[in-house]
């Protein structure tokens, strides 16, 4: 039965249920227990924001604190995945991919192809992304487009507690490497989540709002910005359809195109940078596959091509907001 729980609780519950169900599922990362070798509590932290709190108590040495050596433990998770375990490794901030990217994109992503189909690497790398925490340039990025670029990786960007649980369970059960991206500003978001375990298949976008005039394709935290904009635009009698990608690799292009063919207009909303991003990717796909359906040029609403700033006013300016989305929608409607 469904209850109202947070995004963070939904993730913790997915981990607990899968660890309960399958003893080859293990968890590793910096401070995922947060007390190894210390005189105080064994699971003092449960992850830097407490997402994995309580799992050490339930699963003991299957929840492993690591040294702050991302290359070694992300690589170890990858190696263990080829050797009979289903590791879930936590890369604390997606920004830290810089120190372990080789293990993700040259190792995990490549094994199956480069070994001629004779490899299975069921590893999940959970990682926190996104701006809004005044955490500045090295703790706030939206780097999922980088992973989306790499064949061999699957990339998941849940926007709600329901999706977070179902997509994480699918990630753990999936036999390919999965980068599971959690927006830090969504951890406290609450929503209905079934108590039971359930898996949401990858590559199925979710039309979270139906509309006739404009399609807004978005993902992650920006879904909620899109809804805020759509609510406001409804008062101007502009009807927006909102498509939440849920996974960027695989990407459900059918649903995007189907929606654009109905509305004839597209705004893509992505918290990432504007170049080589999900916004450009979706725009290019629609331009190539559904150009004939377009009644107006596509608009992209993204963060600017700058690092994430620290000062509150600058960071607020950096993050795409509902006003920008409304303006983009009015533009494609010819009402600006």
């Amino acid at each position, binding site marked *: *039965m469904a209850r*109202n729980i947070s995004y963070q609780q939904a993730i913790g519950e997915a981990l607990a249920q899968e660890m309960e169900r399958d003893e080859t599922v293990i968890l590793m990362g910096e401070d995922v227990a947060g007390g190894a070798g210390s005189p105080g509590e064994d699971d003092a932290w449960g992850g830097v924001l407490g997402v994995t709190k309580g799992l050490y108590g339930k699963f003991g040495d299957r929840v492993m604190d690591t040294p702050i050596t991302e290359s070694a433990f992300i690589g170890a998770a990858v190696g263990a995945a080829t050797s009979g375990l289903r590791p879930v490794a936590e890369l604390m901030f997606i920004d830290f991919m810089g120190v372990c990217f080789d293990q993700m994109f040259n190792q995990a992503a490549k094994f199956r192809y480069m070994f001629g189909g004779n490899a299975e690497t069921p590893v999940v790398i959970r990682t926190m992304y996104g701006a809004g925490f005044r955490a500045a340039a090295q703790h706030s990025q939206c780097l999922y487009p980088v992973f989306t670029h790499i064949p061999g990786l699957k990339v998941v960007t849940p926007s709600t507690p*329901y999706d977070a649980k179902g997509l994480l369970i699918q990630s753990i059960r999936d036999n390919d490497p999965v980068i599971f991206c959690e927006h830090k500003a969504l951890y406290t978001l609450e929503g209905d989540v079934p108590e*039971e375990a*359930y*898996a949401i*298949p990858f590559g199925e976008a979710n*039309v979270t709002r*139906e509309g006739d005039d404009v399609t807004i394709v978005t993902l992650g935290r920006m879904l909620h910005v899109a809804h805020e904009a759509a609510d406001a635009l409804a008062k101007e009698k502009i009807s927006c359809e909102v498509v939440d990608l849920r996974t960027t690799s695989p990407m459900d292009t059918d649903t995007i195109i189907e929606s654009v063919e109905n509305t004839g207009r597209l705004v893509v909303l992505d918290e990432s940078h504007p170049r080589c991003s999900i916004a450009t990717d979706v725009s290019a796909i629609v331009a190539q596959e559904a150009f004939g359906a377009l009644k107006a040029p596509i608009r992209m609403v993204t963060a600017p091509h700058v690092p994430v700033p620290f000062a509150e006013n600058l960071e607020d300016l950096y993050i795409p907001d509902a006003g920008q989305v409304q303006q983009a929608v009015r533009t494609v409607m010819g009402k600006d």
Partner: protein
Amino acid sequence: MSDSIRAICMPKWGLSMKEGTVAGWLMDEGDEISSGDEVMDVDTEKISSAVEVSESGILRRQIASEGDTLSVGDLLGVLADEATPDADIDAFVTEFQANYVPPADDEEDGGAATETVDVDGRSIRYLLRGEGGVPIILVHGFGGDLNNWLFNHEALAATRAVYALDLPGHGASSKDVGEGGVAALAAVVSGFMAALGIDKAHLVGHSLGGAIALSVALDNADKVASLTLIGSAGLGADIDGDYLQGFIAAERRKDLKPHVEKLFSDPALVTRQLINDLLAFKRIDGVQAALETIMAAFAPGGSQALVLRDRIGDVAGPVLAIWGSGDRIVPASHAEGLPGNVRVEVMAGQGHMVQMEAASEVNRLIDELIG
């Protein structure tokens, strides 16, 4: 102010409805309305249906307009007798709007109204509405849940207690379906009655739920006051096995939608949200296995294993069989040639989900049967 003034409000259909959008009025201002008449079409994110009034009078005022999205309980229109002055109606509207508080989002917990009961080790979820009298128990079909009765439950509960339950393997009940056949599920319904201390009930079953209700009635003559079978299984071997198999196998929206459309006479009723809700159910661990087990016992190879047609004459109380003439899952031909104790109503043009698509007529027939 005249006490003949009645508000027509946005109804709450099912557990999770928060708001509805007015699709259009079916009655004009000044029209005479009788209890049970449909006055307005409303779309919700899950489904579209008509607003039925339970009072009589003249439609004196249309408050909501086409395209308005209004919360549950919001004022749609006003009924009153001819003699009521316009000023009184204006005053009523003003007072209603001043006092109306839309339901808060956070108290809109889908599960809050339901309860669970342990039946022989299985947790069974149910929703009780109304009170008193000999209760009705609503039993949904294969792949359904207690929300299948969203247009019937409240209406039938006006004068008595009405229970709608989730069968094992469905809704929020335990996923353990045992052997999974009609007899096993009938035992759960009997156990449900025992667990809640229901000595006697009117059973209403849809599809597989009909076969289950019939089975309960045959085995417990003293506990069943009447029996209503809607698009019911159990009266012949035919059933659309492709539907059952397709419903089980479909993992994604695109695959599931064509199967679910077979259930309705109007495929437009199959909203995105309806499909999403079904997918959310099907994706829960254990559901797939439960449905497969039920299918294997209930309709192995796509044909019903248990046909109780020859025994329906033995049912003690009154029996009503309702069918949509265009039912694509269980053919309406199963309604033909039933013994004289069965009142048969075949609704022209309706499909398998007749209790949803022709809710007021189905509700009326059940009320008539029960008396």
